[in-house]
C-alpha cells in the first residue's frame, strides 16, 4: 500500500486527480465526523432551498430517465414497470393533469387513460410526440425499448396470443429445428 506522499513523488497533482480519490469521511472520527455531518447538513439544506423549480424538475426527470434506462438494460422483467407506468410518472413529475397533457400532445384523453391503465398499447405517433414533448430528453427509442421489453414478456408468458392466431395460419413448416 502507498501513502499520499509516496504517490506525490511519482505523479504531478494533475495526474493524481486523474487516478485517485483518497479516503474520505470514513477517516473522520468522533467529534470531527459529527461536526462535519452537522456543517454539511446545514450547507446542503441552504443550497437545496435555493434551487429553482426547473432544477427540481430536471433532477426528477433525470431520475426517471435513468430508472427507465436501467430497467431496459436489466435482464429482469417487472410487471409493474410497463409503458403506461413510466408515462404516468412523466406526467406526474411535470405536475400536469392527464387531460391537460393529452391536449398538449393532441391525443384523446380516453386513449391516454387506457394506455396508462394498461388497457391499450400506445401507437407510434404517441411515442414520437413524447419525444417532441420532452424536447428529445426522452427519445422515442427509449419508449420503444420499454414497449419491446413488455412485448417480449407477453410473448414468453402469454401463450394465449399464439393460440388465438393459430386458426389464421393455413400452412406451416413440417419440421422443427
Amino acid at each position, binding site marked *: *500500500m*502507498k501513502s*499520499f506522499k509516496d*504517490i*506525490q513523488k*511519482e*505523479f504531478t*497533482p*494533475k*495526474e*493524481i*486527480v*486523474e*487516478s*485517485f*480519490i*483518497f*479516503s*474520505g*469521511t*470514513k*477517516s*473522520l472520527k468522533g467529534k*470531527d465526523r459529527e*461536526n*462535519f*455531518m*452537522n*456543517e*454539511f*447538513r446545514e*450547507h*446542503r*439544506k441552504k*443550497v*437545496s432551498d435555493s*434551487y429553482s423549480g426547473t*432544477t*427540481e424538475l*430536471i*433532477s426528477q426527470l*433525470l*431520475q426517471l*430517465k*435513468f*430508472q427507465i434506462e*436501467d430497467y431496459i438494460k436489466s435482464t429482469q422483467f417487472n410487471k409493474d414497470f410497463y409503458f403506461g407506468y413510466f408515462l404516468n410518472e412523466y406526467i406526474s413529475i411535470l405536475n400536469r393533469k392527464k387531460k391537460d397533457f393529452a391536449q398538449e400532445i393532441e391525443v384523446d384523453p380516453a386513449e391516454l387513460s387506457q394506455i396508462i391503465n394498461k388497457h391499450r398499447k400506445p401507437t407510434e405517433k404517441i411515442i414520437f410526440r413524447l419525444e417532441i414533448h420532452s424536447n428529445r*430528453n426522452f427519445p422515442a427509442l427509449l419508449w420503444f425499448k420499454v414497449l419491446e421489453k413488455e412485448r417480449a414478456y407477453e410473448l414468453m408468458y402469454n401463450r394465449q396470443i399464439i393460440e388465438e392466431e393459430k386458426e389464421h395460419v393455413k400452412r406451416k413448416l413440417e419440421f422443427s429445428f
Partner: protein
Amino acid sequence: MEVEDSKTGGRYEIMIERLTLNDFKIVKKDKIRFDSFNWSKYREQEVYKLRLTECQEILGLMCLNEFPPETGINALEIELLEVSVENRGNNKRLQGIAGCLIAFACREAFNRGYKGWVFLIPKSELIEHYSKAYGFVHIPLRAVARPEGFMELETGRSVQLLKKYGLI
C-alpha cells in the same frame, strides 16, 4: 461511456459494475496493478469496477458511501478511487477512467433521488485540480479539524459532468 486510447485516439466502450466477492479476490492478488489502497477493507461496501465492454480486465475501482435522507445529507460520497497502474501518469494507456467513474457516481446520485449530489474529501494539494478536471466546488467547513473541507458536485455541475461523459 467511453475511454480513449492515449496513443491511437481510438475510443472503447466501457461498463461499470458492482464488484463481486470473486473480483475482490482478483484485486487482492493483482497488487501490482492496484497497489495504492487495501481494497479488501471495503469488501462490505459499495465498490464498483470499470472494464472495457469487450474485456473482463478491471481498469478502475471506486467505493461509494451513501448518505440517505435520514442523515439529512442526501448525497453520495466517493470514498475511494483508484485507476490501474498502467493507466496512470504520463504514459497511461487509456484516458478518462476516473472521469467515467465519477460521472457514474453522478448518475447514481440522480437515480437514488439525491438530485445528483456527489462529494469527496480532498487532499489540500489537489483541490484546484479536482475542480479543473471535473468541476468540483470546494466548500471549506469551519468545524472540521482538517483544513480541506470537502468538494461537491451539486445538481448543475453534476448534469455538466453527465453531459461531458455522454450519459445524457
